[in-house]
């Protein structure tokens, strides 16, 4: 029945308090949301937790939804922001370990050690700086450059540059591994 209703109409109805609309909307997008969270975090447990954060916060975020926005774009934005929050939280605690080495380097090193067990791309993506990783996650999730630009609040040119930069770095990581 609701399958023919557009995402945008559902979102508006949900913002108006229609719980069935909200429910169908989330049900429709959950799997995609989870997949995107996985691209952002690179780890299943992290992705599950991030998805849960988003689900918990989504009703409140509905207020920020505006008619002209595409629901997918809006969801991307919510997800990217939630991922940033999580990373920031993590980083704060990671800093508690100053004196025992830089956390990110450690984690990367630990990742490198288990690279055989871990999918190469996920691991490589984890080595990218956050802005590149977010951009790549979006584009690999079939977002257009324009959409990614809107989500991340940068220009389309920046997105294109970041993509080529990310590819360059991934290639470098690969080359380094092949050489090593």
């Amino acid at each position, binding site marked *: 029945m609701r399958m023919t209703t557009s995402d945008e109409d559902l979102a508006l109805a*949900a913002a108006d308090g229609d*719980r*069935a609309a*909200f*429910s169908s909307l*989330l*049900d429709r997008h*959950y*799997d995609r949301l*989870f*997949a995107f969270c*996985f*691209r952002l975090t*690179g*780890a*299943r*447990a992290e*992705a*599950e*937790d991030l*998805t*849960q954060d988003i*689900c*918990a*916060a*989504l*009703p*409140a975020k*509905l207020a920020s939804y505006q008619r002209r926005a595409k629901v997918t774009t809006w969801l991307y934005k919510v997800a990217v922001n939630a991922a940033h929050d999580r990373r920031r*939280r993590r980083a*704060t*605690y*990671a800093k*508690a*370990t*100053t*004196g*025992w*080495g830089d*956390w990110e380097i*450690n*984690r990367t*090193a*630990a*990742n490198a050690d*288990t690279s055989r*067990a*871990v*999918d*190469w*791309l*996920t*691991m490589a993506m*984890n080595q990218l700086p956050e802005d590149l990783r977010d951009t*790549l996650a979006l584009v*690999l999730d079939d977002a257009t450059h324009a959409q990614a630009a809107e989500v991340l609040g940068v220009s389309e040119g920046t997105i294109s540059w970041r*993509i*080529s930069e990310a*590819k360059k770095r*991934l290639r470098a990581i690969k080359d380094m591994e092949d050489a090593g």
Partner: protein
Amino acid sequence: MTDDLDDLKALMDSATPRPDAQRRAENLMLAQENFDALQGSRPAPRPTPRTIFSGVRTMLDTLTTKGGLTATTALVAVGLLFVTPQGQDLWQGGGTQKTIPVAERTQTTPAVEEALQNAPGNFSEGLLRADREDVGLDDFNSGFAPEVMEAPVVAFDRLSQTAPAPAAPTQAEKGVITLGSPMVGLNHADDLSATLPQTRSRAQADATFLPTPAPDIIAAPEANTEAFPEAAPNPLKITQEEPVSTFSIDVDTAAYSVVRSSLMRGQLPPKDAVRVEEMINYFPYDYPAPDAGAAPFRPTVSTMTTPWNPDTQLVHIALQGQLPAVETRPPLNLVFLIDTSGSMNDPTKLPLLRQSFLLMLDQLRPEDEVAIVTYAGSAGQVLAPTPASDRATITRALNGLGAGGSTNGVGGLEQAYLVADGMATDGEVNRVILATDGDFNVGINDPDALKDFIADKRDTGTYLSVLGFGRGNLDDATMQALAQNGNGTAAYIDTLSEAQKVLVDQLTGALFSIAGDVKIQVEWNPAQIAEYRLIGYETRALNREDFNNDKVDAGELGAGHSVTAIYEVTPVGSPAQLSDPLRYANEERTPVSDEWGFLKLRYKAPGEDVSQLITTPIAPSDAGSEAQFAAAIAGFGQLLRDDTYLGDWSYADAIALANAARGTDPFGYRSEAVQLMRLADSLSR
């Protein structure tokens, strides 16, 4: 270029896992609840517009996926289990529930109706209250509307419509399985039974429904976010340039368990996870005990030829702590601070934690007190300070713990300390025990504030120990940092037998310290020793001046614990010397002494601020088999780290040495170590 991207995308798509059906259903439900809470569907604090089963029905309307249906079925099944006599049997029946056909269950529906009618009014609230504090589940009000009675029928009708008959048992079975790994609703089984007194004793006293973790079958995680402290191995030092070596003792054992868990999964451990001193100190040693009335621990120094280098010597420094009479120990106040974030939902985490703590409970005395505070998933005190003799209450609280959620409410850590402060009485021992799989979102945001907070509390006498559970997200670095700041130990629990070792066999040592801020300083005699190298203790190095500074914190020695430190030294004139003598250095020095070096130890008696000094010269002597075994483990650890000092020495040599020095090994720890060496040997080929 686009081809590149397509390849990447294909790679990524294949790497992306399917969302977990159960988590999906939970998350959708959580979102819906928050949505309702936000819509103000309940104008008053305790309104009555909806009941639990209308909620279930809405869920059935909105969730048509298998996951949603499973969750719903689980809820109804839970209701059955608790409310009906048949359910009681199921609950008790252990493994038999899987074979009960659905038909038989459907027959119980009238009984459900009857029981529901008789049940106290707030049954539904107890059943469904989730652990997330901001969820707004209060939507499910406490009354029973008449429509409730048809609900079970609705649910089963729906089940039989959607699922073909043969599939039905699977659905029902899933519902039952949910009981073992607490997820939806079951988290508050204790609330439920509080209102149904006749179910309480069976449901809680009987812990057999806990899933038994299979220690040796641990699936490799997908991507992991583990963090280990990165420390380069201690470098070789030239005695003439730097004759003094200073470090703090380390009584953690986490590294050994992490190494074991990696090897058992068929992987060599990450190098940074191998801290050699923790591996050595994992084992109990039969060192000479201190005499009564003497210092609380006794140092023993012995030397032997280095197994991996005939031209160098190992100097083995052993500290054996005294074991005070256990009968006279002061009462203990323990606050468990338990991580209940979603990732704890794994057989090797929360269920293992529960079983571990139950094991430990048997070791406590009636006058000891236990409290439980949770953080992450659910925040707050779930068990008020309770005498350890009240096993039923503690067991119930432990069984009621459920994983889920990652929202952080009140600061879990602050609350844990608050509870500990409330329990404190003069002469008692206070300790907070943090159990986590790596989520340190304990409620204090500023890392320095977190350290200071723990250190402040340490100074007021409440210590912190950290127990790690599960792999994949383990934040070993933070575990270490917190435990070191809290004067506690960091241990990693990977199997029930490890829990037995840490929380049962060595509980006294883990909870009662006999000497604080134990520091070791060795001054080597350049006339006898050309070069030296401390094996391990990288994360425990201290500055030379820190030794006499009582303000500088160091490790605690627990009752009956022993600590081992090993130096590899190169005597003057040995062909193994790696550095050439300096051409322009001072000419011939007259040997002032035959001693190799001088060992100084500082410690503080418990509760004191001023340290005391123990000194003993280091001279060649014959090491016994205990030291030989420690050397074998030191070699093993360095092999795992791929350290460069071992030359051709191999795992086979380590195995031979360890076997020769195995001793009586009453707990089998040493035999296990040999097994691990064999595994590492095979895996490294």
